[in-house]
């Protein structure tokens, strides 16, 4: 199936959206039908991404499976999709997480069809965002996904859901409007919204710094980076389990993807001039937020802070590039850093999703997220404890799990940049282990704490399924990360090559 004569990316994007809209019209009385359609659509979308991966040429950095059609002629905006080694893994992650969320949402009782519909629409929008090769198309997907997420948190969330969801919406919206102004300005310079044209557009250093800052606000909110992270703990705590999973596993990656697809290639000199800022913020996230996570009493909040800390690794890996190239004069170390950042994002997608699902399993039974409400869960739910401990260990970077690979690569790269970067980054190994293992000790081990815990029943078949899938992926990526790294290699090398070439004087 060379180069695909059929629009596989459009199918991956639009199938979930169309199915999601259709499900909205399924009445409450026939909720089972809605759930079945949702599962079928998400499985087909996953299958399509597997087909795309199998047909993907890992030897080139060029965009593949491209589709292009005129969308808004007057402004030469195109419906232009395509994937490379940076975006395809993230699309696959999106499709996978969608299946898991649909299965995990099987027990939802309230407005089932709307729940499933919202998740499917969200999933299609996220895939579209990763696949977009036209900046305006990207922006449309980027913003449109706020709408379903706003409703998911607001309708199915916890007691403080309204504050959380409005905060989430306004924070993200606020960040992204600056990106819109920057994109329009770039369009007026380049006469095109095509990402490839923007990558080649020469810009003065001053302009690049402004562009970079505008993008930084948008993506830093999304990642989220300290100090604009405050919406995330609220949103995570209040969101339903499925919402937390999608938020942590996929939505946070959008910020990271934005850096590698937009900020770095469009304004490389601006990024080089301001890399200290991003590296500084990343290290603050890794160390300071790590300590904050240690102090949490709410399991979801702890995982939320842990996510911020782990995403700090991703941004650190990306922005080490300039220092490494300057120190070593070679791009190998920089490729390692960015590859590590990408692996970290995928791995964090599996692990954070799995941890939120684990909390969801407990919450469904006991209706509490407080760590102190549990103790000795391993005695009554041994199988569940096995999975949960695996995921929390993976979160602390245990070798053999996917959590180790990305962190190790980024720390190795950090050594080539500056010893102190590596030193502070490596503190996560201690901090991550501390808060993860301490949580495991308090929740899973020890004596059975109370009657609630004593009456717990172990995993049901549905929960088994999602846990096994995520455990296999976590271990698989940890033991054999080569296929993923191989897939990214040409694109990352091309990216590093591009961003280390100045755009100031063409």
């Amino acid at each position, binding site marked *: 199936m060379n180069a695909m004569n059929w629009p596989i990316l459009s199918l991956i994007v639009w199938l979930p959206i169309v199915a999601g809209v259709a499900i909205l019209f399924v009445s409450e009385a026939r909720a089972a039908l809605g759930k079945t359609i949702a599962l079928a659509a998400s499985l087909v979308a996953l299958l399509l991404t597997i087909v795309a991966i199998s047909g993907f040429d890992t030897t080139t950095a060029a965009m593949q499976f491209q589709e292009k059609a005129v969308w808004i002629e007057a402004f030469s905006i195109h419906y232009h999709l395509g994937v490379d080694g940076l975006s395809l893994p993230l699309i696959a992650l999106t499709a996978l997480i969608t299946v898991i969320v649909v299965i995990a949402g099987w027990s939802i009782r309230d407005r089932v069809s709307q729940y499933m519909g919202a998740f499917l629409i969200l999933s299609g929008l996220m895939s579209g965002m990763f696949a977009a090769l036209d900046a305006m198309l990207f922006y*449309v997907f980027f913003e449109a996904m706020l709408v379903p997420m706003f409703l998911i948190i607001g309708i199915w969330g916890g007691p403080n859901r309204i504050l959380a969801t409005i905060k989430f919406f306004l924070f993200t919206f606020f960040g992204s409007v600056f990106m819109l102004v920057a994109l329009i300005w770039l369009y007026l310079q380049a006469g095109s919204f095509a990402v490839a044209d923007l990558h080649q557009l020469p810009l003065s250093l001053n302009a690049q710094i402004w562009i970079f800052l505008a993008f930084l606000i948008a993506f830093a909110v999304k990642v989220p980076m300290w100090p604009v992270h405050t919406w995330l703990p609220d949103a995570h705590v209040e969101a339903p389990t499925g919402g937390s999973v999608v938020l942590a596993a996929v939505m946070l990656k959008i910020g990271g993807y934005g850096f590698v697809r937009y900020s770095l290639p469009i304004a490389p000199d601006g990024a080089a001039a301001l890399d200290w800022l991003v590296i500084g913020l990343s290290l603050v996230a890794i160390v300071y937020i790590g300590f904050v996570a240690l102090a949490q009493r709410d399991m979801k909040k702890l995982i939320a802070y842990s996510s911020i800390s782990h995403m700090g690794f991703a941004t650190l890996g990306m922005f080490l590039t300039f220092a490494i190239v300057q120190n070593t004069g070679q791009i190998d170390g920089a490729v390692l850093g960015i590859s590590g950042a990408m692996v970290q994002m995928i791995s964090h997608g599996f692990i954070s999703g799995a941890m939120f699902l684990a909390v969801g399993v407990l919450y469904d039974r006991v209706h509490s997220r407080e760590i102190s409400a549990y103790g000795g869960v391993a005695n009554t739910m041994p199988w569940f404890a096995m999975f949960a401990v695996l995921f929390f260990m993976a979160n602390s970077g245990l070798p053999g799990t996917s959590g180790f690979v990305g962190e190790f690569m980024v720390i190795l790269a950090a050594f080539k940049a500056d010893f102190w970067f590596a030193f502070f980054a490596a503190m996560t190994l201690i901090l991550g282990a501390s808060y993860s293992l301490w949580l495991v000790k308090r929740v899973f081990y020890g004596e059975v704490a109370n009657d609630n815990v004593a009456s717990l029943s172990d995993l049901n078949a549905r929960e088994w399924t999602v846990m096994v899938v995520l455990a296999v992926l976590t271990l698989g990526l940890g033991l054999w990360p080569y296929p993923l790294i191989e897939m990214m290699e040409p694109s990352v090398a091309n990216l590093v090559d591009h961003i280390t070439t100045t755009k100031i004087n063409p």
Partner: protein
Amino acid sequence: MILSDLQLALPEIFVAAMACVVLVADLFITEQRRGLTHTLALLTLVFAAIITLRVMVPVGDSVLAFSETFVRDRFGDIIKLFAYLVLAGVFVYAKHFLRVAGLFKGEFYSLSLFALLGVMIMVSAANLVTVYLGLELLALSSYALVAIDRDSASGSEAAMKYFILGSLASGILLYGMSLVYGATGTLQLGEISQALAGGMSDNLMLSFGLAFMVVGIAFKLGAVPFHMWLPDVYQGAPAAVTLLISSLPKLGYLALAIRLLADGMGNMHADWQAMLAVLAALSLILGNVVAIAQSNIKRMLAYSTISHVGFILLGILAASPAGYASAMFYTIVYAMMSAGAFAVMILLSGNGIEAENLDDFKGLAKRSPWYALMMLMIMFSLAGIPVFVGFFAKWQVIAAAIQAGFVGLAVLAVITAVIGAFYYLRVVKLMYFDEPESTAPVTAPIDFRAVLSVNGLAMLGLGIFSGGLIGVCVRAFG
């Protein structure tokens, strides 16, 4: 092809005649068969559209008529077509409300048609006198419409305020026109433009004339600081009339601004750009911030109008064809969004009591999921979230402003858009996250429901397929 003057003005002549026919025919229509008046008015709009479409001026061309007082061009034709469309929607929405409120009278239709005629004349004006003629026809019809509920004290109060402030604005505009006439010696917009090109732009009298004209336009549009009348009139008028005056006249006032500023005073754009920049900035800030504090939906939408006027001004002040096209797109889209929002408000009104409080929207998603979805799309569109059409309107005016060098103003605009998103989100929150206070079913006649559904879905459809309408607007300015 040489067209006679009458042929060019046929849409206006037809609407004028039909407004009179409706007025007279209604006298012979009994209370029970008042629906006939409604049908007649709708048919008028359909035929007006057909007549307008039959004689379209080619793109980029403009034809003058009646001693160069009247102009037909693509911009005017498109605006007229959308004016018919918007007014048809308003008629369908209003009928339901007027019936329930006991205001279902023929005068509503004839006055609305006269208002439409005012818009059409203004849109096709090529002469200061024609501009003023259309403006006053529209304004006088609007004053009367606001006071259509004879027994309502708040309606009369609103009409009085509207009349006094509106007359003042007309006076100011007229004074500005007289100064411009004094300086250039002509009433023809084309000749004024030529006179300015001949190097008169530093004339003090002209500058004053321009300033007065801008004030008049700002007054009519409701730009800060000339917005005081707007929230009171919106709140005091019956919902059906608020629906009308929040949508149709905006199209006319857009044309007023473009005819006077772009066609007439285009060579003084440096002067009026600065004035509009101040008006736009103030409107954006005040409209969006004050709307947050409102608990009355009509007042909230009134302040939201003010903020949208800020965006429209942003497009005009770019003083480029792309800018005018973006303002035109924005105004057309805004008229549709505003009509839809007021329609949902009318939908929730029952037993003659207007659903004026935001709390009336509580739990709408449970009472009526479909209309809640329509309102959701209208609200997100007003907030400027893609993929709804309001986003495409916003980014075009912002792009035009950036292109004209107003980057700071563009940044201000997007920041106020974020502030504005809050109160639109609040409506969504009330509809989706809160429990309903009333369990009364939401009912409306079939035509109302059909038009509202089309209106809501248009927010999405025009967004996804925005290329078409954008192309139409861009071509309207050559």
